[in-house]
């Protein structure tokens, strides 16, 4: 049985650009698919086709049991869409916005009104509910937009880069809302260029580039595909880089990568935290002073890099993960190092 969202061979061209170049998707009911890719990869086009906003040149798509081309109205009844830009009327109040959308979903004006009250409460907008949306902050608009998409509790939700442009606090808040939604059984297709976001929210991930799905699987599967854990060491004294590399290579599953400029050594390992402790003891006993050390599990950044040979929207990704920089073992602090490492590995 096809899933709640099913697509087969979707193609859509704009002039010379093949925005979708044969995309297949299958999202089982109640699960979350993360469509991951850089700007211009075709994520938004895919969402627009699946939400009946755009007709594909060829291919077939079924959403909530209805064909998007043959029964668009039935599809629209069953979906909620939260697009890249908060789709609210800024001159209407939050309450009026929600009520309007409810009535356009063909709810009676009374039940639309009641549902608006509920949603304002749920999204912490009750106080601002009678102010025009113009006065809302970016995060509030996003919440209102999401609330509007949820008016009829649609079984299938589409969210196109739901947290782009939000500050970390609002992003966390939205993640929690999305998680509770999914816990309630909603099927969700989410596009994002934040690898961290796909990792946290999605059960399955489809990596999209140039209109094609170039990899799919769970976050763990994709990471395993890229390679296992690594130990990363930053040596204090550049003169000891050679010795340190020798020591680390002894623990390695295969080779090492050295970035002389940042004095960083990376080796693939198996053995986790226990091994890390051994590495530290060994380095210490040989009198090598280290500035930083960590056990790094591959991130989706690495996955993307190894699949496409280019970073996923480098500056955006760095910005998106800036909050992670402080955590040991996180990738963001090693932003530059990541590029260097993968480049070596690809050879």
């Amino acid at each position: 049985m096809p899933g709640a969202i099913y697509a087969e061979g979707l193609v859509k061209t704009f002039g010379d650009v093949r925005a979708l170049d044969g995309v297949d998707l299958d999202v089982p009911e109640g699960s979350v698919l993360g469509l991951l890719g850089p700007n211009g990869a075709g994520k938004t086009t895919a969402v627009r086709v699946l939400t009946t906003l755009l007709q594909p040149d060829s291919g077939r798509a079924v959403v909530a049991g209805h064909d998007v081309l043959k029964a668009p109205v039935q599809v629209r009844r069953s979906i909620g869409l939260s697009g890249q830009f908060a789709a609210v009327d800024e001159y209407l109040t939050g309450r009026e916005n929600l009520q309007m959308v409810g009535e356009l979903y063909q709810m009676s004006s009374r039940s639309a009104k009641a549902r608006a009250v509920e949603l304002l409460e749920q999204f912490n907008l009750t106080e601002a509910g009678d102010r025009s949306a113009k006065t809302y902050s970016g995060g509030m608009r996003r919440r209102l937009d999401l609330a509007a998409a949820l008016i009829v509790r649609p079984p299938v939700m589409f969210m196109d880069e739901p947290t782009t442009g939000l500050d970390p606090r609002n992003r966390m808040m939205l993640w929690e809302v999305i998680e509770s939604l999914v816990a309630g059984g909603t099927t969700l297709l989410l596009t994002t260029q934040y690898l961290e976001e796909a990792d946290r929210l999605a059960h399955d991930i489809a990596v999209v580039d140039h209109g094609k799905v170039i990899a799919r699987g769970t976050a763990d599967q994709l990471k395993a595909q890229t390679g296992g854990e690594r130990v990363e060491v930053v040596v204090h004294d550049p003169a000891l880089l050679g010795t340190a590399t020798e020591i680390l290579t002894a623990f390695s599953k295969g080779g090492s990568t050295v970035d002389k400029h940042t004095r960083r050594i990376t080796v693939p390992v198996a053995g986790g935290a226990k091994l890390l402790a051994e590495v530290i003891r060994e380095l210490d006993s040989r009198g090598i002073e280290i500035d930083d050390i960590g056990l790094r599990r591959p991130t989706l950044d690495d996955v993307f890099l190894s699949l496409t040979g280019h970073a996923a929207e480098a500056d955006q990704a760095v910005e998106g993960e800036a909050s992670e920089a402080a955590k040991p073992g996180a990738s963001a602090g090693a932003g530059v190092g990541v590029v260097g490492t993968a480049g070596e590995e690809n050879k």
Partner: protein
Amino acid sequence: MAATSAAPKLSDAPVPKGGIVQSVHDSLVMARRNLIRMARIPEMVIFGMIQPVMFVLLFAYVFGGAIGVPGAGGDKTAYREFMMAGIFAQTVTFATAGAGAGIADDMHKGLIDRFRSLPMARGAVLTGRTLADLVQTALVMVVMIVCALIVGWRIHDGLIKALAGLGLLLLLGYAFSWIGALIGLSVRTPEAATSGGLIWLFPLTFLSNAFVPTDSLPTFLQHVADWNPFSATVQACRELFGNQLAPVPSDAWPMQHPAWASLLYSLLIIVIFRTLSVRKYRSAA
């Protein structure tokens, strides 16, 4: 954690009724949205009223003394009575620009994707906007009528006929707002829709019987003016308001049966431009 029932989860959304009932309902919901917006941006409505009032005063006092009207003798107020139908008609056609700008503005915001992803009637976004513009046009008419009465315009053939004339004016305005809708859907910015909605209105409204008697025009332009849809409404109003002093100087069918011509022209414009606009709205990516 997630509810894993075998039966597919259903939406809370009621089954769309479809057809004309839903179309009317959705259009009214959209019209209400546009009216709320107008009420919250009152400067737009106010500017929309100042311009026609200015026109009434300018034409009445600047041209009023200079342009002679057939059949009026030396009566100075005759031109005011003559041109008022023309100014009324010109003003209702300015709704084109408002509808065009409003729709162009909507089309380039994320909101339109929301509307297009909802199980709502396809033409409702556009119909709602044109209906709201009709309300605004009606308000402008009220202000203009008061103003016209002050400068000496009167109706001479009774209230019923005058109301029929007003009805034709509003219908013309509604028809023109559909032309505006198509312009709004065809351009990239609201500014372009405003100017695109206005520039052709000047030749259209001046190459008519609105401000000068057509027998003063060169023969070729006289034909253009006689068959101009705009002239039909002006002529119809002039007669329904009792402002036509001399016999109409033309045997062209629209000038002989101006009320019918006005009605037909307006309905034709609505059918053509509504069809084109809704089609364009649906295919807009």
